[in-house]
């Protein structure tokens, strides 16, 4: 594993540029100026994205298993922790995803600011958030990783707390404390591994090398600490309860970022840190992770079936999907971890998309009660189709991105790492497969109840689409239809007429998601090619550390 | 063994002082009790100085006495202050701040 250091400025720029933007907004704009912060914010995010694209271009895909743009600078030498950053095949997709998502979310916010307003604070927070996310994916030093990992918390806390829904206070604090709880133990675990490996260095490379040497029991304990930290973030089954509240209360933008990137920090941590550094610990914990993951799959699905609120349903579906990801990881095989990483990106795109749609629906109907929403396809055909598309992608339809996270993960469970119990994991595989059916059940059920059928009384006749239809009906000779829809018009005139189909900004923000979902679904090699070598190397590190 | 008696006495004084601090409700009495504690300390110091025959202990005792005086000054001033404000020096009434 040799590190390539050419163009190594690019990562630091890509990571900290948003921070500059945030400062610019904070000190450069006045509070009553609605527009400038948005402009600056979108501009900065755009610039960052450009850097990201440049990174994609400069990235040497033939050595995606090596760290590229590698920097190793002094930072806090007293605790022998350095500013060590680098990018390899595992980080690249998520690193770029974070940039893209932030940018698109900002564009989306141009027209769809949450009620609380104050774009100045909103945009600067989002930029800080971006720095945190990007940093987490490039950090190659435990302390640096931890810092970025935590930096993300604060902006998200405020995003939920300030711009959130009715129970935002409860939700935000819960989110915060929960994650805090995990990361506190994670920090202890980090220090433990640091001292167990001789207190030389916090850099990943060093710990990969030395971690395996720690004796098994100690590894198990340290892994337990990291497990707490990451599992809360993922979130895995017993630690998931912050997620539905956070998602439901968060503003659309928050939910999207949360689903698209933040949840990935946990799984990424497992793959990047916990597994390779503590192979025996991983091997000991893998069954637990696998079982919890599968419980999560079924449990999340059941949770979805119970929901009456669309956003909460989507939130619970994340629990299920991350279950697949964790199942893949728990197999400790190249197959599984590849699947997991693909699944992370896919879930990011798809669930992000779902939350976007949910947000826009909320924006129009001012409710997400499934029972009150109906006939969306009549009132907003395009929105309805997009929802359907996202739902299909989410239930793992081949040809769309979701499938490539789900299917190989299930497949990999059939023969996990030789050190693991085959029977157990095969059982898990079957249960997970059942999970796919449940996924179909709740998503289609959701779709059938919201998109199909007739609009409910309270909203009927309030949409543009219906008016066109009504006008059309006026011409042809359906007496009944005419009278009905004209009746609809009458009460439409009384209420204000607020149900429009997908708006331009929404199109701009969503199209990349939709395209990405299709492209990665149709030609997954695009990502697997990047992931596979890196993952293979990672798994070799793991296997090397597990005595046969 | 002569010194041992001093130490014993000091210990007893100390205990009385502590008891006073814990048991008495009257600010001045508590102040007195604390003085007892300090004096037990002085007694100790002098006794030990005698045992180890060097002057450090006695010097220390002098410092303690001096500072104790200063403290008592401040202390009595405060007692006066609260007496002026609430016409009582019962410590039980000094419990507005709690929880």
């Amino acid at each position, binding site marked *: 594993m040799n590190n390539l250091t050419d163009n190594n400025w690019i990562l630091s720029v890509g990571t900290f540029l948003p921070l500059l933007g945030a400062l610019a907004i904070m000190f450069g704009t006045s509070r009553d100026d609605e527009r400038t912060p948005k402009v600056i914010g979108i501009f900065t995010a755009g610039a960052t994205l450009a850097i990201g694209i440049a990174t994609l271009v400069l990235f040497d895909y033939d050595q995606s298993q090596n760290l590229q743009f590698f920097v190793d600078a002094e930072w806090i030498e007293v*605790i022998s922790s350095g500013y060590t950053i680098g990018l390899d095949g595992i980080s690249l997709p998520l690193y770029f995803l974070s940039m893209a998502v932030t940018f698109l979310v900002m564009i989306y916010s141009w027209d769809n600011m949450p009620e609380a307003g104050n774009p100045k604070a909103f945009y600067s927070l989002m930029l800080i958030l971006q720095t945190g996310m990007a940093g987490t994916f490039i950090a190659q030093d435990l302390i640096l990783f931890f810092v970025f990992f935590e*930096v993300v918390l604060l902006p998200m806390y405020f995003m939920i707390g300030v711009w959130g829904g009715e129970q935002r206070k409860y939700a935000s604090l819960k989110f915060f404390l929960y994650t805090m709880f995990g990361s506190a*133990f994670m920090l202890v675990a980090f220090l433990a591994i640091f001292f167990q490996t001789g207190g030389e260095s916090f850099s990943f490379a060093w710990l990969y090398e030395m971690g395996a040497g720690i004796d098994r029991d100690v590894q198990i304990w340290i892994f337990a600490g990291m497990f707490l930290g990451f599992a809360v973030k993922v979130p895995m089954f017993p630690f998931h309860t912050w997620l539905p509240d956070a998602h439901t209360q968060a503003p659309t933008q928050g939910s999207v970022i949360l689903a698209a990137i933040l949840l990935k920090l946990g799984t990424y941590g497992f793959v990047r840190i916990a597994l390779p550094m503590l192979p025996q610990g991983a091997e000991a914990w893998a069954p637990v992770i696998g079982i919890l993951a599968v419980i999560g799959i079924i449990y999340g699905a059941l949770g979805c079936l119970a929901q009456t609120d669309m956003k909460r349903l989507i939130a619970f579906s994340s629990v299920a999907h991350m279950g697949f990801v964790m199942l893949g990881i728990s197999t400790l095989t190249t197959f599984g971890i590849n699947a997991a990483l693909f699944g992370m990106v896919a879930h990011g795109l798809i669930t992000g998309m779902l939350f976007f749609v949910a947000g826009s629906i909320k924006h129009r109907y001012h409710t997400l009660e499934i029972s009150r929403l109906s006939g969306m396809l009549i009132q907003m055909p395009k929105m309805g189709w997009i929802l359907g598309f996202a739902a299909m992608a989410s239930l793992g339809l081949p040809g769309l991105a979701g499938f490539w996270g789900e299917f190989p993960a299930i497949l990999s469970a059939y023969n996990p790492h030789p050190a693991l119990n085959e029977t157990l994991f095969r059982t898990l595989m079957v249960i997970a497969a059942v999970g796919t059916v449940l996924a179909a059940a709740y998503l289609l059920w959701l779709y059938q109840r919201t998109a199909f059928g007739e609009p409910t009384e309270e909203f009927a006749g309030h949409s543009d689409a219906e008016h066109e239809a009504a006008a059309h009906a006026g011409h042809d000779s359906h007496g009944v239809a005419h009278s009905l829809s004209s009746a609809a018009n009458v009460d439409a005139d009384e209420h204000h007429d607020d149900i429009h189909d997908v708006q331009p900004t929404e199109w701009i923000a969503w199209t990349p998601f939709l395209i990405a979902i299709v492209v990665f679904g149709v030609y997954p090699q695009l990502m697997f090619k990047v992931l596979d070598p890196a993952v293979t190397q990672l798994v070799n590190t793991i296997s090397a550390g597990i005595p046969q | 063994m002569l010194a041992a008696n001093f130490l014993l006495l000091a210990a007893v004084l100390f205990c009385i002082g502590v008891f006073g601090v814990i048991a008495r409700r009257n600010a001045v009495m508590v102040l007195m009790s604390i003085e007892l504690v300090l004096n037990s300390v002085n007694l100790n110091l002098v006794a030990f100085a005698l045992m180890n025959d*060097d002057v450090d202990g006695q010097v*220390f005792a002098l410092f303690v006495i001096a500072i104790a005086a200063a403290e008592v000054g401040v202390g009595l001033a405060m007692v006066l202050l609260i007496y002026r404000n609430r016409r009582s020096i019962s*410590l039980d009434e000094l419990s*507005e701040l709690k929880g």
Partner: protein
Amino acid sequence: MIGMISSLLAQADWSSPPIDWHAIAPELILVIGINVVLLIDLNLAESKKWMIATLTGIVMLLAFIPVVTLGLELDGVPRELFDGRYVIDEYALVLKALFLLVGYVVVLMSQNALEDGGYYQGEFYVLMLCSILGMVMMASSRDLISIFVALELLSIPGYMMAAWKKRSSVSNEAGVKYYLMGVFASGIMLFGMSYLYGATGTTALTGEEGLGALLTDGSLSGLEVIGIVFVLAGFAFKISAVPFHSWAPDTYEGAPTPVTAFFSVASKAAGFTALMTLVFLAFPNASDVYGPMLWVLAALTMTVGNVLALRQTNIVRMLAYSSISQGGFILMPLAYAGDVDAGGSALNAVVVYLLVYAFMNLGAFAVVIAVSRKTQSGEISSFGGLFNYAPGLAVAMTVFMASLAGIPPLGGWFAKFNAFKAVLDADTTSAYVLACIAAVNTVISAAYYFRVLRTVWVDDVPDGNTAPINPPSPIIAALGITVIGTIAVGVYPRLVAGFGNLSDLAGTVPLLG
């Protein structure tokens, strides 16, 4: 008369010891400053009293100069006075600097508070200077007696400052409680000292005849153990460690806010200074005694402080409990001072924590002062919607609270991290247990810190009065210093990470394995 005394001295063939004036320059400047301020205050018109504050500030800054020069001149070789009873080494200098800085910031904070309150300003500042002097001395004291004197010198003015609002009964109460408890605690401490003196026959900490050399595990007599325990208890009171904390919340709440800030930072730091000096110089080999004791104290302190802070509705009282629990975190590494590996990083961890803690806690109080000037209330709820009408203060508050909660990349994070690191360096089961307790406590503490932030950002303004706050310039200055300090340390910890290396502490005997 003079001649008589001198002849007496001559008879006792007493020659005055050589005095390193440069070394004690900070103390001298403070002493002079005290008198100057006092004199000027005596004949200064009521209208011009504001000058006093400025003057005090200047005194502090003046005292700062020799600290710096000493630091430059020192490079490794400590200066010892009075055969090692009073030492100026880098460790001492760092802490002196800290005390002066804190003093300066507190002056900035208190200026307007006092003007508004119409209190006696001159005396106040004199007292504060005395207290600072005591602290500065504490940093250099290497002898039980000088430690004791320094302690009293910094405490007694404190008793009076606590009761400074003469007509407010709570202020009196605060003062009285602080006073009685303080004196009682120092009584106990003295008792302990007397036993130590008795058992070892010396009051010096260092040197082959000093306490450090004589008190060694295994060969401890009952007197020595009691002595050690009581002395530690005395300072545990000063740093308001549970269960010696009970005075703190009441005093903090009752005393004028700037004074509270002063107590919660400066005198606490002084207490820790004494503790460090004792633990590293007097009892380094008695770790079987202080180790368990400090372990328990640390665990209790952070936990009890936190759970009690959860219940508070008054911001000052909440901060009081928070500072108690922070004290627990600072105390944590000291429990492992005797450990071969941890010892070094423990000292460093404590010093660093004290620095960072000074910044963020003073900052928090500065915000409280600034806000309560408008709202005239100490309730947390009165901060509602602060973000809407005073975003600047709100952001500052966010920085401090987050830093106190230990969120990177703010100073508090590095301080906590360092403490954890020092503890885990010992790599014993008890260390891991303590670390886990601390981990849980970080979460609990985050709960109440972020409840404040939630009020600041989310809640509505309680009394729809959203007139923007423009705090007076001294407070803005104070805020500036503290915010910058907090962030800088967090982002670039090397700034402070170097402070408090074991080697800087002169006279430390090599720790036993």
